[in-house]
């Protein structure tokens, strides 16, 4: 308990307006993305965002299982967001928690608008997101990496989907919350964006306390974060596929 007390006194923003990890208020954590690293999956991707480490894999389109879930006019997108027992401070039971079931649902709903599900009636596209290490913002990083895995699997999409959170810490609106800011801060607003054909918000959640003005500021800040990460997503895809294209042309 004393450890917790000490943490509560920890300042989230210092006198110079910098955050615990030295970031500016509107600065993202360092992000590393990699596409196509698992050989068995039809598509896969990996993200590191701060201390978050998340792996995503896509299988399909393939036969829906269980079969009765299949839809006559479109593919089923099935999504499992799951945290490794060792991904957090205290061991998490590997059985899916209510939080993981809810997140699996909202992540799926954030990606469905992007995927041309109608191209594959009666089949299933199965997406698995494994959080290997959690450090705040896992649902957003999970969406960012899942979109890359879908693209890597060659699933036709309107665009990638990219996600980023903004929130409030010690009265200031901040971008891309770290674990401490998420737990001790006053609000968390995760947002997912599909940038084209016109900017569309495909995930929006919030918990905490914000006035309407603060909410507007937070959404806009999160969208700016999304636009930055979107560029990194495209670079990650190019890093895998441009060399392949050049090889093929030789």
């Amino acid at each position, binding site marked *: *308990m004393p450890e*917790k007390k000490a943490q509560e006194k920890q300042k989230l923003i210092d006198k110079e307006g910098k955050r615990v990890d030295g970031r500016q208020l509107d600065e993202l954590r360092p992000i590393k993305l990699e596409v196509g690293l698992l050989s068995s999956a039809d598509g896969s991707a990996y993200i590191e965002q701060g201390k978050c480490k998340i792996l995503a894999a896509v299988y399909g389109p393939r036969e829906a299982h269980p079969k009765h879930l299949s839809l006559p006019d479109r593919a089923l997108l099935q999504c499992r967001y799951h945290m490794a027992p060792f991904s957090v401070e205290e061991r998490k039971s590997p059985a899916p928690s*209510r*939080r993981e*079931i*809810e997140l*699996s*649902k*909202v992540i799926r*709903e954030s990606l*469905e*608008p992007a995927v041309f*599900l109608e191209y594959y009636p009666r089949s299933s596209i199965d997406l698995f997101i494994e959080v290997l290490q959690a450090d705040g913002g896992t649902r957003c990083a999970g969406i960012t990496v899942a979109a890359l895995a879908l693209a890597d699997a060659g699933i036709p999409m309107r665009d990638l989907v990219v996600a980023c959170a903004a929130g409030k810490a010690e009265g200031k609106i901040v971008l891309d919350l770290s674990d401490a800011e998420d737990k001790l801060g006053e609000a968390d*607003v995760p947002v997912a964006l*599909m940038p084209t054909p*016109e*900017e*569309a*918000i*495909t*995930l*929006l*959640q*919030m*918990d*905490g*306390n*914000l*006035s*309407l003005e603060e*909410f*507007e500021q937070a*959404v*806009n800040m999160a*969208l700016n974060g999304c636009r930055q990460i979107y560029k990194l997503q495209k670079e990650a895809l190019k890093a895998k596929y441009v060399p392949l294209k050049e090889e093929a042309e030789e």
Partner: protein
Amino acid sequence: MSEIVAKVKQKQIAQLIAHGKRLDNRGITDYRDFQIEAGLIEKAEGSAHVKLGKTEVLVGIKIDVGEPFPDTPEEGVLTVSAELLPLASPSFEPGPPDENSIELARIVDRGIRESKAIAVEELVLEPGKKVIVVFVDIYVLNHDGNLIDASVMAALAALLNAKMPNYVVEEGEVKKKSGYTQLPIKNHPVSITFAKIDGKMIVDPWLEEEQVMGARLTMTFEKDGNICAIQKGGGYGNFTVQQILEAAKIGQQKSAELRKLVVKE
């Protein structure tokens, strides 16, 4: 089958909404008739039955003594669960909670928790060891759309109606003394749910509107008008930033109107 009927009706519903009308003659930002009855389950410490149009939700509150969470040793515990009863809709099946009932419970939970509706710091009997646990059980009795707003209002009404036994700690044991005190409620979260149909936003979708909606957006407001919880869900659709900011303005105003129906001050 309902999906096929819904597709035939989709055009009609969308055309009406484009003209600011709805199948049940409501305006775009009108809620259905709202009725509330509190305290109808005598064995529960708190209860409320809400009718929102034909949607019916019953919430029961049970209060017990338990252990606090290790990271909040000096706070009482709130637990929210939801049951989509098979008697409420042909599409509900018996079994463990599915993602829809878990999402419903978690949206209601977030509204109560984030608005600090319950004064959890007043529910401590022995710090770190024994606290009062508040169980909020949402029972959906009839599904005719917008279960979220009906459940949030029923939960709020049931909490306002809830009494807790007078617990005392004597020599390390918790005992019940005679009489009850009111459960301490500090805030009154009310949610407003929007459905997007053919690019237009409406509030309080009923079942047929939910079946054709592209996406759903729920915003929960505190009594001072601040937002405490948001959830986008439902359908294959999305929202523009403008739609979300407009929804926040409408929601702030609507939630104040609805709150007056639940909270009699």
